[in-house]
């Protein structure tokens, strides 16, 4: 009888530990996403200033600027799922990146102190965002591993935990700029 109780006790203990590990991993993902969201918001907050300082110069980019502004207001609406936020961010990053490249066509703008300051702030934020994305992806990988690997997968199934998505744009960011290739184009 005693042996039976001990076995039950040990099993209960294992279940508790596994359960806690899973919850900790899930919270970790949410926690890091909140951190990521905070830096993303900082970038969105910077946008009105940026648009204000570039629009008089970038006459040909009017539609892009409008689109970016629209994306921003969409992103700042409440009640978005994290997947939706991630998708919005990917589009936003791409458009902003494109806009920064086209700055090259406006020499006057490149000399504008106010714009330069904004550009510096933006590139600093980009670096923080990239760090947050990497941290997020790492924690999601951890979480996904836990819910697919034995024995935590059994418990995860009962708790209705499902796989989470990682940021995919990272691969592109990670690749080094191939200067030679750029010149050949």
């Amino acid at each position, binding site marked *: 009888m005693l042996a039976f109780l001990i076995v039950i006790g040990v099993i209960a203990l294992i279940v508790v530990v596994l359960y806690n590990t899973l919850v900790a991993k899930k919270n970790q993902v949410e926690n890091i996403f909140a*951190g990521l969201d905070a830096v993303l918001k900082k970038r969105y907050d910077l946008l009105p200033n940026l648009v204000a300082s570039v629009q008089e110069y970038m006459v040909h980019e009017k539609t892009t600027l409008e689109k970016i502004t629209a994306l921003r207001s969409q992103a700042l609406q409440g009640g978005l799922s994290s997947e939706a936020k991630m998708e919005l961010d990917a589009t936003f990053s791409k458009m902003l990146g494109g806009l920064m490249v086209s700055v090259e066509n406006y020499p006057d703008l490149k000399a504008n102190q106010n714009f330069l300051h904004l550009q510096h*702030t933006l590139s600093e934020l980009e*670096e*923080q965002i990239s*760090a*947050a994305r*990497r*941290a997020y992806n790492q924690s999601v990988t*951890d979480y996904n591993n836990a819910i697919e690997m034995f024995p935590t997968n059994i418990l995860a199934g009962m708790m209705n935990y499902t796989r989470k998505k990682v940021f995919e744009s990272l691969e592109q960011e*990670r690749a080094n700029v191939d200067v030679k290739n750029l010149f050949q184009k």
Partner: protein
Amino acid sequence: MMDYYYGNMYEDLKALEQNRIRIYGNLKRYAMYICLFCFIFMWILSSLNVMKGFELLVLNVFLGTLVFGFLYRNEVAGFKSLFKDQIIEKIVHFVDKSLQYDKNGKISEDEYTKSMLFTKSYDRYRGDDLVSGMLDKTSIKFSDIHTEYETKDKDGKTHWHTIFQGLFFIADFHKDFNGKTVVLPDFAQRVFGGIGSWMQSLGKSKGKLVKMDDPEFEKEFVVYGEQIESHYILSHSMMERILNFKKKTHKNVYISFIDSKIYVAVDYRKELFEPVIYKSLLEFGQIKGYFEMMEMFVGIVEEFRLNTRVWSKE
């Protein structure tokens, strides 16, 4: 380097070499006298039947070593100091003219403790050969550091154990941050694999365990700190550079990032920049070793690109 060696150092080295040969000769003579004296002493005591056999031998070896140690220190102290003034200082200035060298200076105990690299409390803190200065935008300093703790065995005899001995380096970091990120050699994961990494997550004294997204780095090092900030500091290129640096030194490397500073400790388990008494100073290979070591330490700034500032920290 060769030009500098022959132009600025060779004459001093020749004079020092004379000094070294004299000291080396003296030491050999002392050793001989001590052996002779011990022998006579042993012979007298055993013929008087005061002591004999093994006990006598132990007593003699003990006394002999003590006397020789005393004489050795006395003889070598002056030479060491001259060697540092004339040779090491020149090597420092060869690597970068603006650097200052203080043979008696060391990284302060406060800074050592603040780095959080070695949390074990120490009973003895020693160091010398402080090099400091500004390289472009980055202020750096480093010195030799040796920390030890004390234990007593059941006979009340004191034993000293080394916690860390080697290079301790501090510089401004090129990114601003508020938290603390500590990168330590991953002994547990190397030995125990996955269980090791689970064990690490239990120890919370240094902060939360952070998993990094570079498998090779993750295998060699364990990172404690705040999730997002650690990734911000340890970019992919930074992790690669740390791995390269570790490969170059062949030693255990400890790194922390605290209050916008980087702390690097390389565990050499020996004193750096000390002269070798039983080898000729005139062999270039001997002096080259000091040059290379100094260049590598100052090169940390270049290696970790500490002068390439992010916009906000220009």
